[in-house]
């Protein structure tokens, strides 16, 4: 850091920054860092947190010694009979599903959020339109579970009280069991997540769109750029930092989220995700060792995004 020139404003007394940081750092240390280290230790121990994890090993079976819980966490769901079976089982394991969640839900929420923010920008009832998109954020998970019951419900023969199956049967189709059909069910759950979180992305992206200076856009138009080019080549690069912030936030949200899966399928029918698996191991199976090992893997998964953010952090400071 020292080699980089610092703006004059950034020079100050040695202790001044720490006064600004102190409340935040103290709280974060007490509420996140300290408990985290307290808990990470458990991932090297057995299910009760008493013996070492190495004691869990069984003869004639693969064993990673003190990392035994990590072996379970990483390979427990994989079918090891053949490479193709392993590949197939990976994509319906909690890891494969989490990857699907990240790609589908993050791209879904960001793209829909950005386009919608752009489309409603300046229309007559902009506030109302945004509020409608935002509304699902305001619904607690208990409520959301009920709401989606009336969308995905699979009525057996007499009556469809799920609107999707009502539409399908009205068009002459066979009702679909959205939450039990492997593959389709994860997508059905991602749709719920996208429904809930698009409003979040839209809100942040919309205020960033509004801060793009009009002069720059005007200059581009004078140069003959059409509106699509203005949007993709000028607006998007300008708000890129915000987009990255939103993507980072969403990735973290998706990694942590387990409520939707927990409420709607409980991780059954191959819909498990990492966060739900952690919850199941910790509180349903009372296996703190395995639960915390999964939690540590979850934390590791965010490393690439830390890297992207640091790079952007540096770039932003170079530029200003």
């Amino acid at each position, binding site marked *: *850091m020292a080699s980089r020139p610092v*703006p*004059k*404003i950034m020079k100050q007394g040695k202790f001044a920054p720490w006064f*600004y*940081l102190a409340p*935040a750092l103290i*709280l*974060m240390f007490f*509420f*996140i*860092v300290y408990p*985290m280290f307290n808990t990470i230790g458990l991932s090297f121990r057995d299910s009760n947190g008493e013996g070492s994890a190495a004691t869990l090993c069984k003869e004639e079976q693969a064993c990673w010694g003190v990392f035994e819980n990590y072996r379970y966490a990483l390979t427990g769901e994989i079918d090891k009979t053949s490479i193709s079976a392993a590949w197939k089982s990976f994509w319906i394991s909690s890891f494969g599903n989490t990857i699907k969640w990240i790609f589908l839900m993050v791209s879904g929420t960001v793209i829909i959020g950005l386009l*919608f923010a752009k489309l409603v*920008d*300046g*229309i007559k009832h902009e*506030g109302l*339109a945004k509020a409608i*998109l*935002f*509304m*699902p*954020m*305001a*619904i*607690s998970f*208990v*409520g959301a579970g*009920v*709401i*989606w019951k*009336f969308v995905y419900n699979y009525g057996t023969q007499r009556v469809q009280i*799920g*609107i999707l199956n*009502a539409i399908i049967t009205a068009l002459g189709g066979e009702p679909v069991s959205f939450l039990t059909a492997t593959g389709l069910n994860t997508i059905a759950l991602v749709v719920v997540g996208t429904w809930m979180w*698009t409003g979040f992305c839209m*809100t*942040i992206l919309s205020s960033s769109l*509004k*801060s793009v*200076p009009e*002069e720059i*856009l*005007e200059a581009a138009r004078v140069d003959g750029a059409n*509106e*699509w080019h203005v949007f993709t080549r000028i607006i998007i690069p300008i708000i890129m*930092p915000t987009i990255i912030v939103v993507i*980072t*936030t969403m990735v*973290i949200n998706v*990694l942590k989220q387990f409520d939707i899966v927990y409420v709607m399928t409980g991780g059954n029918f191959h819909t498990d995700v990492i966060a739900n698996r*952690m919850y199941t191991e910790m509180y349903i199976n009372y296996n703190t060792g395995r*639960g915390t090992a999964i*939690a540590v893997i*979850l934390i590791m998964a*965010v490393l690439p995004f830390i890297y992207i*953010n640091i790079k952007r*952090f540096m770039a*932003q400071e170079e530029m200003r």
Partner: protein
Amino acid sequence: MKRDKINKFFSRIPKHIIILFVLVIWITPTLGLLITSLRPVQDINTSGWWMILKPRDDIASQQNLPKFTLNNYIDALVGYRGTRNYVSDCENGTAPLDMRCNAADILNPRGMIRALLNSLIVTIPATILPILFAAFAGYAFSWLDFKGRTLLFAILVGLQVVPLQMTMVPISRAYSTLGLNGTFLGVWLFHTGFGMPYAIYLMRNFLGSLPKDLFESAYLDGASHWTAFVQLAIPLAIPAIASLGIFQFLWVWNDLLVSLVFLGGTKPVITYQIANMVSSLGAGWHLLTAAAFLSMLLPIVVFFALQKYFVKGMLAGAVKG
């Protein structure tokens, strides 16, 4: 407005139709909840909510039921826990003992009004505190130089992913020692601590994107850091504060786990009361439709109230140009 020109492109595709299409998709599930909450429980499972206007073809004995009813709302509001509904129980004189069948029932501790108050007591400080501290820290990260700044920022990004469940046991243990279990203070601090990484992350990103000249010139005019923070950074950060405010508010408002573990059932918040309407085997979930809808109202109001500040972000942006 020049902005109209940008919109010209989009007006070539039928913009309003796309907007309407998205809105219909987004609103349909919620509309289903609203309509369901207005139906008698016996109807909910026997026909889809969109069939509400169609005459019943079901059991003859239920033909005399009204198609719409406010019973679910009334029962949820007064915290009715019987087997029929509050209104008919009161008419027949079979109301549970804690119901007095007059206006005083609205303040029944099991009803939603008290829970609403408790939720507000929890939510307001737990929204303001993290924003305040995050503004300080965000300013330090953006405009002060200190050793280990990048490293701390990296840790900050990473801390966002730490699952809540990992920290509950050690903190609950510490709270026992400190006597903070079951207090509002304990919940405020927990939400503040846990909301901190994201709040700082967002504040830093916003404050860091403000133009350097602004701070440089203030500095040259002899302003101290404190003055720059209070008079420049905070007013300019209003859009960021508004969006942070709404998200932190929602997160705390809709949280059940933290308030259950650290506050407990003795000071029930609204999510506790909602979850509590359904018995362990699923009876009474029709009340939940009404309660979930009621609990949504305040966050929506907050969203509308803060929306004008999102627009102010545009003005703030104009200042820097």
